[in-house]
């Protein structure tokens, strides 16, 4: 007999982490009024994700971005529908390999690590660079 093994949900608005938000005062005896004043509950999805269909998550390995506040095991929110600007933190495909770096497009094209121990990567004609997506958010669990 079969059973469910995995569930994937794509919903335009957040659905998992919701904290109900009430506006206005709750007056006893008028539940109907209270209901009408109930607003959409807050959702982290809504806060961090603008375009659910083009947003993917990635986990950080290593310490190359620590000075941008991005640490090992952090979860990056990567939006592929946003066009990258100078200074954006991007997920790039450099010679068909994924990397997360800061994009420097003023002057010479560079991928900059946010850690002095890592040299900048100058993107020359020998490299093939594709900007896969822009890092638009960060999620970290503290315990």
């Amino acid at each position, binding site marked *: 007999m079969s*059973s*469910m093994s995995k569930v994937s949900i794509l*919903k*335009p608005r957040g659905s998992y982490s919701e904290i109900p938000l009430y506006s206005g005062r709750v007056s006893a005896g008028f539940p109907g009024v209270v209901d009408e004043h109930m607003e959409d509950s807050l959702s982290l999805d809504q806060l961090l994700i603008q375009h659910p269909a083009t947003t993917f998550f*990635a986990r950080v390995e290593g310490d190359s971005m620590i000075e941008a506040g991005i640490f090992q095991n952090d979860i990056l929110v990567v939006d592929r529908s946003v066009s990258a600007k100078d200074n954006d933190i991007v997920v790039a495909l450099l010679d068909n*390999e994924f990397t997360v770096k800061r994009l420097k497009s003023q002057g010479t094209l560079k991928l900059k690590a946010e850690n002095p121990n890592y040299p900048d990567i100058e993107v020359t004609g020998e490299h093939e660079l594709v900007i896969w997506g822009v890092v638009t958010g960060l999620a970290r669990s503290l315990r």
Partner: protein
Amino acid sequence: MIQTNDVTYALCDVNSFYVACERLFRPDLRNKPVVVLSNNDGCAIAMCDVSKSLGIKIGTPYFQIKHLIKQYDIEWFSSNYGLYGDISQRFNWVLQQFTDKVAPYSVDESFLIFQGIADNLETHCQRLKQTVWDWLSLPICIGLGPTKTLAKVANHYAKKHKQSTNGVVDLRNQTHRQWALERLAVEDIWGVGRRLSQKLKLQGIHTAWDLHNCDYKTLQRMFSVNMERTILELRGQPCFAFSEQPEPKQSILNSRSFGNPISSKQDLKEALAYHTTRCCEKLRKQSSLANSIQFFLRTRHGDHPSATLSLTEPSDDTSLFLSAIEQGLNRVYDSSEVYKKAGVMLFGLEPSKGYQSDIFNQTQQRPELMQSLDSINAKYGKDAIKFGSLGFDKRWAMRANARSPHYTTQWTDIIRLK
């Protein structure tokens, strides 16, 4: 200037969809041949153009291509329907950014309606194609025509001549249409198929153009109303409704708009159950098993909540899909919303012949079984389901030797970046 309120149908179709999904998080595979195998790693179900040119076809058994995989260093995958379903939903969302009229036809193709764009429609479609590539790394082809059947024909050419057409073919123009239909065999027309085409050939009808020129009343008498409708569609007269249930291919779909918008969960559940039941009937009728089910809703605000659920092994058992739907609905349902439409799609199909079926599969209507399933789930929760499938987990794992990570549906499987 073409009349701007003309309706144009478009068929958008992802080239080697499962392969594109596998490549999405594996850029190293961009220029490497890739093959995806069926549920039990039995045979090839999707392959890139290079693998195709090596003679690997849909349905070719794995043992027959083993040597090619080795010789040409082909990357092969067990099917990962969780991933494919998720990407399929994203694909349709992107299409909706270009027109609000999108009808999914299968897991990797959707019909669109464009209205009032007229002259620059090809440019619009090129932009759409580029966007789907930029945002989801999915290569697509688009066929345009005044009817769904002609959009299908146009898509056929776009796919066949990807380079020279740049993936977009427009058959709204009469001259182009004749050129295309003269070169298209009848069996390649949407909904005609091999059996019908043999009969047509006996009548001297070999090409789509031959059929186009037939007296449709005569052929309606000889064949069916559908044949008449196909002929009229070839002539540019729309006969198939936009979201009409097409011939099942690699997926089976059922959907309908509600007469009156509904918001109660119970009503939604019943609507989805209805569609699921119909889909499963069709599934059994064509002697197939399905591995995954996707449902989609449309809200008053035009949002499209949807969910994809996969079984641990393919089945044609309605009750299994019903409980899958219920599980998905619990996650997606929003009591403050009003819903206008619901639909269900089964995909990951394979022939049931040759698949070892268990004793539960001997009857189709088994309310007792469903009841006991429900009560077990209610009593023991998730673990009960797990317990029930324990005996199969091992076999299933063996049959999915090379499944890619669940990149988009499990936190443990998301890509890692340095």
